[in-house]
Structures are given as C-alpha cells and as structure tokens.
C-alpha cells in the first residue's frame, strides 16, 4: 500500500462501507472501537508522568494504534465511504517503509531518519518552523532570520498573510499567488544567507491542492525530489477528502520527500489522554498507508488551549515517540505549539519542556509555534533557538527518560498555572532589528538569562 499501490488505495474511496455522514461513522464505529482498544490494550496514564519510562506500555500503545487503524479505517468525506486497510496491507507498508532519507543538497544536506529511544548515536533533526502568519512586507526577512539559525537542518517557513493588499483566501487567486510569492521569497532568502540547498517543507501558505501545485517549480518555487518537503493533512479525526488525495498524488509524482500532518485533539473525538495517544500514533500509520508519506509531523493538541505543552500533551508526545521508535521504521517529528508569545519567560519554559519531553523518547523537534497560533508576526527565531538547543543538549547529555521526566516536572512548575492566561508577548519587529535581521540586545539578554536558569536545573548546553 505504499507508493507503488497508490491507485489501489485511491480506489478504496469508492468501494468501502458507506456512512451517510461523519457523525454517523463516529458514533457507530470510531467511538466504540476507540473505547475497546484503550481497554483491551490497557493504556493508562497516571495523570502526573510527562516522560514515559514503561517500555511495555509503549509497546501496547503501538499495538492499540495498529488495531484501531485496521478496525476503523479512514472516512472519506466526499464519497462518504470508509477506506479500510487489512492488517496484511498495513504490515506490508510498515515493512517496506524506508527508515531514513537524505534531504537537501550540497553543504545543506542532512539525514532525516528514525531515532531510537535514548538514542546515543543519531542526533535529532532540527526543523525550524514558526507555523505562523507574517506580514507580507517582512516575509522574506523573516525567512532569512530563521535560516540564519546555527542548528537549523530544515525549515518550514512563515506563512504570508496578504497578497497585493488582499488577505490570502483559501481557494482563491490570492491564495495561489501568495503561495507562489512564499516559495519565491524562500528561495531568495536561502541564497541570500548562504543556504541555497537547505531542505524546506513548502509551502505552508498553500492550504489547497491547486495552490500547492501552482507553487511547484524547480526554477523559482518548490523543488522536486529530496530537495524540498511537502505536507498533506489528515483531517480531524481520521478523515480525508479528494483534495488531500490530490496533494499526495502530486507530491508523489513530483518526487518530494513529503510528510503527513496530523494532530489528534485532546478532548476531541478520541476523548481523554490515553485515547488521544492511541489516535495520534494511529495517524502515523494512516499517513504511511493512505498517502504513502515518508514521515509524519505530530501535533496532538489541547482542545481548549490549542497548545501542545500541557502535561497530558507532553506525555502523549513522549508515548507516541517511544511506541513508534521501538516498533516501526516510521520517521516522525514532534511539533511544538506554545501558549505564550515571544519575549515571555513562559514561552521559553514551554519550549524547553517540549524539547526534553521528546528527545530521549526518540523524537525530532519541529518548532516553535507561539501564542496558540493566533497572531500575525508573533514568532521569532529566538524561542526556536532555545527549543532546538534544549533538544540538542538532551542528546549531548545522553539524558535518560527518567532524568528527562525529573527535569520536565521541574520546568512544568514554572508555567503550568499560566497556561490559561493570554500571554501573547511581542512581535518579531519589536524583538528583532529587521534591517540587520538580528535580535535586539535586551531580548538576547533575556534569552541568555533563560539558558542560565536551565543550566541551574542541570542542563548542559552543547555550546
């Protein structure tokens, strides 16, 4: 069911069991099956642990996720049919999946690969991404600011807000044009900072299939093959549509090392923490089987706060990372969505905690998105820098999961009570000198102070 069976997979959208709408499928299939697998596979969380140390639990989570995916399938909202996959089909995909890809080119070339739990050899892949909208007039400079980051292995660039004074709107010419401008800016920015061949996951501004296709151009836009990455979403929850299948078809024919973007909602259709962990893990299997994706971006998030840094969400990231690292060749990254905004201490604590919760569990950091993804220009490379430096420190220190949990518990105390507060901080124009594309001194001082505080907790940064 991998790339070579693409059309057999697409045919499932016309042949599977019929449900008149998603709600009927949810009530009759998704919800009862989820309750069953959580119970049968004995998935339990103690409401305190952040970094899991129980290998047997991680293995049961993997088994539960696979059981759930085979039992439930994927609901196709356009054809109203369920695309079901047999266990044998799933096993074929899992066996044939490649555990590593060389991405980018020249001196920007990197390995994107599966890591092990408490991996002592393979350093994490540092994907920088603000996952936020930026004003069009500063977009290229913002891309340059991120590309300048020392640890950067890949970039998912900021999104463009407007095109020629009009808000980029889904399915309209403004979206298509904004996607093209995004791709052009990014290519320019890469050349200007001396990283022309860095792997970029492009382009976030293009929500629709037609905009993605329009932005693909080896001369000025998204490049084919291993040079750039793309993403196709799994719609919540466990659903897809023709537009998503179109994207996967385009990415495969264009040859990109593309991923599937998946975010189970804690408090949503799956329910509580344990079920959300099952669903999120199942999404990684779904992406590989349904879209033939080469990797997955995991962003399970909180229904109320739209963030990934609460206690239960960090446990989910830790669990799914271990479940997959121990049981599969599926490549994945862990996406950070913070509650707070730039230049707040809270944001730095959230970034640090997400990094330490994931690295020793076998994860790869992707971030950092800020202030619940609500406000334009509210993200800077500084918080991403700390996020990735913490992940690198965790690797360099050979932090065990038990040590990581101790550290995460201490960091959690710094911000847990602040999660409900609207603490959206400052814009990139306030934090950075956008002419020089460097952070202003007072914010560099704050960044260094936060590193000092982490050092006092026992963190040893790589440099």
């Amino acid at each position, binding site marked *: 069911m991998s790339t070579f069976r693409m059309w057999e997979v697409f045919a499932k959208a016309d042949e599977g069991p019929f449900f008149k709408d998603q709600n009927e499928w949810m009530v009759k299939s998704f919800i009862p099956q989820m309750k069953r697998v959580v119970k049968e596979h004995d998935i339990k969380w103690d409401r305190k642990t952040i970094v899991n140390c129980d290998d047997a639990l991680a293995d049961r989570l993997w088994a539960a996720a696979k059981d759930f995916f085979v039992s439930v399938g994927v609901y196709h909202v356009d054809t109203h049919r369920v695309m079901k996959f047999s266990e044998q089909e799933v096993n074929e995909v899992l066996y044939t999946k490649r555990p590593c890809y060389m991405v980018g080119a020249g001196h920007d070339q990197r390995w994107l690969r599966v890591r092990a739990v408490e991996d002592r050899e393979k350093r994490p892949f540092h994907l920088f991404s603000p996952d936020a909208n930026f004003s069009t007039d500063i977009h290229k400079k913002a891309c340059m600011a991120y590309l300048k980051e020392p640890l950067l292995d890949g970039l998912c660039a900021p999104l463009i807000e407007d095109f020629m004074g009009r808000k980029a709107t889904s399915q309209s010419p403004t979206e298509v044009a904004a996607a093209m401008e995004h791709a052009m800016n990014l290519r320019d920015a890469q050349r200007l900072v001396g990283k022309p061949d860095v792997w970029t996951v492009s382009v976030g501004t293009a929500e629709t299939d037609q905009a993605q296709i329009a932005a693909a151009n080896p001369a000025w836009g998204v490049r084919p093959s291993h040079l750039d990455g793309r993403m196709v979403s799994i719609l919540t929850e466990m659903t897809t549509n023709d537009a998503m299948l179109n994207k996967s078809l385009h990415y495969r024919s264009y040859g990109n090392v593309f991923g599937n973007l998946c975010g189970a909602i804690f408090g949503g259709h799956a329910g509580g923490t344990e079920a959300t962990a099952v669903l999120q893990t199942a999404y990684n299997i779904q992406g590989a089987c349904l879209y033939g994706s080469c990797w997955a971006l995991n962003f399970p998030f909180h229904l109320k706060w739209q963030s990934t840094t609460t206690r239960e969400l960090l446990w989910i990231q830790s669990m799914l990372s271990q479940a997959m690292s121990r049981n599969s060749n599926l490549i994945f990254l862990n996406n950070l969505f913070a509650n707070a905004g730039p230049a707040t201490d809270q944001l730095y604590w959230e970034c640090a905690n997400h990094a330490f919760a994931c690295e020793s569990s076998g994860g790869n950091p992707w971030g950092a998105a800020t202030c619940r993804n*609500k406000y334009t220009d509210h993200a800077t490379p500084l918080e991403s820098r700390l996020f990735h430096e913490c992940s690198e420190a965790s690797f360099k220190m050979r932090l065990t999961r038990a040590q990581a949990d101790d550290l995460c518990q201490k960091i959690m105390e710094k911000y847990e009570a602040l999660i409900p507060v609207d603490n959206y901080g400052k814009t990139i124009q306030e934090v950075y000198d956008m002419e020089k594309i460097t952070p202003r001194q007072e914010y560099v001082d704050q960044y260094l102070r936060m590193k000092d505080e982490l050092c006092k907790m026992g963190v040893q940064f790589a440099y």
Partner: protein
Amino acid sequence: MSIEKVRQLMIDGDGDAAVSLVQDLIAKGTSPHDIMGGLTEEMEHLGQKFESFEVFLPDLMVAGDTFMQIMEVLKEHLVADADGKVPATVVIGTVKGDYHEIGKNIVGIVLQANGFHVVDLGADVDPIAYMEEAHRSKADAVGLSALMTTTMPKQEEFIKLTEEAGKKGQYLICIGGAPTSPDWAKRIGADVWSFDAFEFVGKLKEALKNRKK
C-alpha cells in the same frame, strides 16, 4: 425514578431502550415536558463536566445522539402541549474551503444541550447557503467557524454579503475558530466572538437578550 432511568440510558447511549422507555412513560401519563426537562438538565450537566474535561466529546456525542432519538418521539407530544415558547434557532457551519468541523460540532452539541434549535450545514459552506438557510429557518443567529487563516476571510465575506443584501441585523452573526480573535471579530463587524463553545453559549444568550430589548 423512571425519568432518572431515561437520563442514564441517554448517557449510556442506549437509544433503543431509551426510546422504548419514553414511549412507555408517556403512555402511562408522564408529562413529555418533564421528560424533556430532565434530559436537558442532564445534557447541561454533561456539558459542564466536558468543560472541565471530566467527560469528553465522545460521551457528549453519544448522549447527544440518543437525546435526538428521544426528541423525535417527544416532538409531536411537545407540539400538542406547546406553551408558546419558541427556542432560538442558530444556523452553524464551517466556512467555504474549510473542512475542520470539530469546533463547530461541539458548539452544536452545547447549543442543543442549552435548549437551542440548531441547523448544522456541515463543512465547506458557501456564504449563500448560510443566508438561504437563515432565511428559511428564521434564524436568530448564524455561526461561522474557520480553522485556517486562509479561510477566515470567508467570515468577512459573509458579513459583507449580508450588508449588501440588506440583511445585516436580521440575525446575529457569530464567528469562532482557533485563528480568530476578538480583534478580528471587531474588524469585520461580527456580533459575537468567543474563545470556546461554552463561552459562546453565554455570550449568545446575552446578545439575544440585548437584541430583544
């Protein structure tokens, strides 16, 4: 005691048993209004528990599905018994180009639990479809959900269209979704914005009350 049993069957999602018991109760003289009152109270209670994550969306969905099955039975008796009160009607949907339904679905369930009549247009809803349904169902409010920054402009487009069609003010225009904010709502002229479904119910009730004054 028997209404208590119906409430429990609703929570358990046992629609067949609940419907059968409700039919039995009505035949034996229990007031349909009392049954509905008990069930609405239970849904509100579940909604409160959901707000604090003591229960989750699947529990609410299963109970809501059973609630609707029971309502099919109660409907004809309630009409016959009507005391003139008409519940407010809210048309909801996710805007054109956006397929994310979870937020909108939660709003629908919570509104129903609070006694509103809800017309759910689903996802990828054309602005004209909202307007036509609002007219057809004499809506008191229209709710437009958007989960992507590139679909937020569809909320603005709907408000512009209602202005141009001379329909602005005929119903409240409510917006929501993860990337939206109070600033955005103010900028496009929406009547109600809320952080989540629970805040929305309170704000909508207040706005409807002010509108009637």
